[in-house]
């Protein structure tokens, strides 16, 4: 009995904190999602699933959802793929030119370490239609200059490229760690078994051995991709004409610019459930497919 009491006393404070600071706010958000509560208002009406039908039914809501999906569909494979490519390149380079490899590693990691808002400002300058370096280079090579951030058909892809640029370095570091953990005898074994090209060795050893790393990198990249916010907020404000509106930016806009706390809560709930589902699926795959040991 005494022991139980001590246990309770030890667990108690943390449990109370978790309830107060995690479960209660989440519960409040879920309740708010079914109301038309306005930030600062003294009362709210219960409106059922209206907020959710607006999100999935309205043009603007659907645009934010589809933009986020397109963005993620570009960023996840590209960022993971380039991250792997760069990591393999640097891993091989480190055997012959360790100094240069270390420098390049730092260079690739810089965007990860830097503040996104500061980077957004420099990207805005680079991408400026008439003053920016990128369009200057484009016209130097005889290419048509583009309105990278103000063309409705282009802006989302521009943001996606920046998203890839930003996350490649992080993925590269994770992959480098994964590569270093592959026992070199496996490559010897593959060579003895008859794998002659680097390509064959990649598919027989590197790729499967990186399975757990790749899965982890995918989860991390997906989580950041679906949460895309900073670049949108700092560079486009979701525009022009909602062309770069994303789910988290919409959440911010509805909640903190429009003060529609109820609707913003509904977006939060949907977003939370989607991420939960994604994580659950990926965890399942991780358990099933890439659990070697």
């Amino acid at each position: 009995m005494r022991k139980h009491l001590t246990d309770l006393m030890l667990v108690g404070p943390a449990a109370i904190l978790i309830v107060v600071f995690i479960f209660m706010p989440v519960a409040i958000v879920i309740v708010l999602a079914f109301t038309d509560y306005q930030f600062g208002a003294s009362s709210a009406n219960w409106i059922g699933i209206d907020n959710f039908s607006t999100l999935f039914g309205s043009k603007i809501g659907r645009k934010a959802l589809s933009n986020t999906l397109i963005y993620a569909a570009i960023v996840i494979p590209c960022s993971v793929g380039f991250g792997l490519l760069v990591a393999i390149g640097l891993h091989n380079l480190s055997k012959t030119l360790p100094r240069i490899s270390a420098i390049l590693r730092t260079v690739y990691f810089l965007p990860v370490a830097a503040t996104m808002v500061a980077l957004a400002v420099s990207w805005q300058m680079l991408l400026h239609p008439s003053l920016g370096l990128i369009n200057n280079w484009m016209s130097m090579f005889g290419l048509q200059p583009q309105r990278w951030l103000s063309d409705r058909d282009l802006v989302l892809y521009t943001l996606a490229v920046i998203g890839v640029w930003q996350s490649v370095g992080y993925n590269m570091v994770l992959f480098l760690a994964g590569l270093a953990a592959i026992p070199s005898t496996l490559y010897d074994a593959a060579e003895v078994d008859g794998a002659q090209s680097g390509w064959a060795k990649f598919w027989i050893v590197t790729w499967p051995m990186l399975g757990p790393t790749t899965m982890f990198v995918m989860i991390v990249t997906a989580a950041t991709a679906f949460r895309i916010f900073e670049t949108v907020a700092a560079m486009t404000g979701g525009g022009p004409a909602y062309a770069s509106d994303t789910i988290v930016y919409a959440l911010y806009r509805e909640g903190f610019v429009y003060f529609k706390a109820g609707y913003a809560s509904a977006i939060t709930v949907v977003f939370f459930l989607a991420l939960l589902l994604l994580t659950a699926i990926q965890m399942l795959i991780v358990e099933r497919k890439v659990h070697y040991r």
Partner: protein
Amino acid sequence: MKSLLLSVGLALTATTAMAETEIRVHYAIPTIWAETQDMLADAFMAANPDVKIIIDGPAEGYADGVQRLLRESIAGTEPDVAYVGLNRWRILEDRGLTQPLDGFLPADTAAAGYTPALLSLGQYQDVQHALGTSASTLVLYVNPDLVTQAGGSMEDFPTDFDGIIELAAKIDALGDNIEGISIGRHDWRFQSLLGSFGGRPMLEDESDITFDSDEGMAAAGLYQRFASEGGMSSLSESEARQSYPAGTLGMFFESSSLLTRFEEGADGRFDVTVLGTPVSAEENVYFPTGGSAIVMLTDDAEKQAAAWDYMSFVTGPEGQKIVVENTGYAPANSIVLEDQSYLGAYYEANPNAKAAHAQVAAHAGPWFSYPGPQGVAVTDQIAAALVEVTDGADVTSTINDLAETLRLELGMK
């Protein structure tokens, strides 16, 4: 001797008792306002030693500021007085946080410098909730060098939109990197063009949308004509704000509040020149006014009196002189404009400011904010429709659709 001591003691207690009224003031955008706010507070306290002004840590922008006020009001820790965006005080009014000012205003408001146009900036349904503290309207920034290169001249600069579009096309043809004209695809710019044609976005009683009128079509049509005839490429707001001071944008419709920033940015590369927005109608012309307003939040009678003293000081000629000289905003008090003794020397040195401020004095009008919970959200929809029109969508059907959407969203139907 004893009586002298006693009277000194009385005087001391009297001053300490009087100085006990403390007024907490909230403001936003410290990059523009920090020093000005301190000067206003110091000047006011020098004249009113019985009131102590305490300035809260500022919010980054007006949106953040309103957010913070709403949060504080829920917690019951809101300040007594707050500076808010001219288009945002309605959010506070909607939540019942602002105190009506009609009881405090003098009988002869015009004599105090509060013209009907200026008062209209803070009125809703004939109740005065806010007073303007700084004002800006849409003006035309011109790069005279590019105008001259394109074969135009500042002396016979076009006074109507047709002439401006023609000039824009010529400037645009100067080079790949040169843009002729730019205007933000944004609710406030649209309201300004609408006002130039004598139109209004809504009925006074906010019961219906009215920008699907001839004036509205003409205003929205300008966006399309700027693009198709004037060669306007849809630069984003921040891109255009970089291009103009860099000298690659010929004409730029923007807020007069950016004057100082552009002059600093151009850094002598060319003479930043401000002209009024063309007036395209005989009557009903107005320009929606941006800037800041001050609202009273305290419901404590004693504090209200002191708060009003502060408010009337900062909206009065002395306070407005400080605001104009330090921020470049147009004043929201007519005395300071009419009486040369306040700002005569300033305008002598800053002709651009004079042009901008003259437009405020002549045509200031309310920046309509749309009512109800969707009020802010629909402004983004207006911006989106303007993007579509600029990109070539049919003006009439787009604007009609937009008006219908707004009526639905705002519950006017």
